[in-house]
């Protein structure tokens, strides 16, 4: 994730910017309406954004034009939904580019597309779907966090492969190559991230359960059931 400044050649960085912008603007309108309704959420949104920044700044080298790190988007994707997460992720990526030269301005569109938009969207809808069929809450959080992370990397590989198709085998070959190199560092990292988010949610449920009820992540009866599970 976090394709470096200057790494994507000319048609591609513009294309990803154009694709990412409408999602961010839509997210911004959602954010505005939510804040109008309930201004108490502003600090919480700020904290969730800071959280994404800190988690996704822990990077490990990987051989593919970027690096491996946890994405940290699952928490805000599950609690606020994917579109608001898109705005938070965009701000975080902009900060990382401007303040610690991690990512870049031209590649911001591509990075936002993978980490702030597609990853959380997939994670969130899978979470919602599994939630409907009464799947175990913690297993569900694990799957959502795992997906947020792994999908981000798949999209990054796709972006890189589209920009740099291999001479022999074209797009498919280089997509496979990028995915393969990423998987080495990213699969274990995604599993760890999933587990970490399960522990995070466990602590939030133990210490501040009213937060999740207020944000309609869990209904009250479900919360009681989950709290019962923790006590066991």
């Amino acid at each position, binding site marked *: 994730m976090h394709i*470096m*400044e*200057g*790494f994507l*050649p*000319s048609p591609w*960085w513009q294309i990803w910017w154009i694709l990412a912008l409408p999602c961010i603007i839509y997210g*911004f309108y959602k*954010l*505005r309406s939510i*804040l109008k309704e309930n201004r*108490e959420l502003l*600090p*919480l*949104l*700020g*904290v969730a*954004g*800071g*959280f994404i*920044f*800190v988690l996704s700044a822990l990077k490990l*080298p990987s*051989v*593919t*034009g970027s*690096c491996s790190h946890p994405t940290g988007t699952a*928490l805000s994707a599950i609690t606020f939904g994917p579109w608001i997460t898109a705005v*938070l992720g965009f*701000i*975080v990526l*902009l*900060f990382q*580019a*401007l*303040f*610690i*030269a*991690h990512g*870049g*301005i031209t590649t911001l569109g591509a990075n936002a597309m993978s980490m702030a938009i597609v990853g959380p969207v997939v994670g969130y809808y899978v979470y919602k779907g599994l939630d409907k069929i009464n799947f175990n809450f913690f297993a569900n959080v694990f799957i959502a966090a795992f997906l947020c992370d792994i999908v981000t990397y798949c999209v990054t590989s796709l972006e890189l492969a589209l920009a*740099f198709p*291999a*001479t*022999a085998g074209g797009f498919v*070959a*280089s997509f496979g*190559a990028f995915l393969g*190199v990423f998987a080495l560092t990213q699969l274990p990292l995604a599993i760890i991230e999933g*587990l*970490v*988010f399960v*522990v*995070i*949610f*466990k*602590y*939030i449920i133990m*210490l*501040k359960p009213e937060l999740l009820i207020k944000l309609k992540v869990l209904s009250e009866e479900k919360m009681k059931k989950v709290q019962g599970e923790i006590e066991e």
Partner: protein
Amino acid sequence: MYYEFLEDIAQTNRLRDLHPLIKIILGLGCILISVSSQSIVAPLIIIITISFATIFLAGIDFRFYLKLLLIPLGFAVLSVIVIVFMRNSGQILFSYPLGDWFLLTVSYGSLNEGILIFSRVFAGMCSLFFISLTTPVTETFGLAVRCRIPGEFIDLSMLIYRFIFVLIEQAAQIYNAQHMRLGYGNLKEGINSFGMMAGALFINTWNAAENLIMAMDSRCYDGRFAMPDDSAAMSFPLLCLVIVYLMVNTGIAVYTSGFVLFGVAY
């Protein structure tokens, strides 16, 4: 900490009192030119001039600057190697069989492309560090306000910026405490400790954030931070100088677009 350190430098460097617009135009302009350049000449010129500006005009310690650059450039080298092996075209430089079916090949074409991409990344890094080392965050926000970026967006950004430091500071404390109590002895304990830390951090910071908003509300916060506009006066000769510099660079990039290091153009 590393992050606070960058912000300290941005607040104390010699270009601190320059209008932020000039610095940002210079940085972004250089990034755009180096990304669009088809040869390594323009990025090389940008690397040299921007580094010169950062080290001598802004007065950043040379060794510190080098250390900052070394981390991202390490990543860049690794990534460019993949490109070099995958994008072969033109005359073959060498090939090395890896096992029975896999052939590692490097050709002049891919080598040229790899070097071009590396020079773009290098120039981009230098320009980004120029912005982050000379422009304090508050001035960037001030500029954003004047560009009519919606207030909610800026407020949220400022809150996120504030909480990054709260989070990092508390994380360091909790991590040290956990580490001293052998919280990271093995992987399972490590995951548990890290999750415990992250959960506690989230809740703690959230509490701090609610207190902050309450404090601001009682001081008539209405969803918009007041921004003191204390940035320096605009200097038009300097702005013109920056624009001329960017135009010269663009000219160089266009003029040298056919230049390649090895063999004929790919």
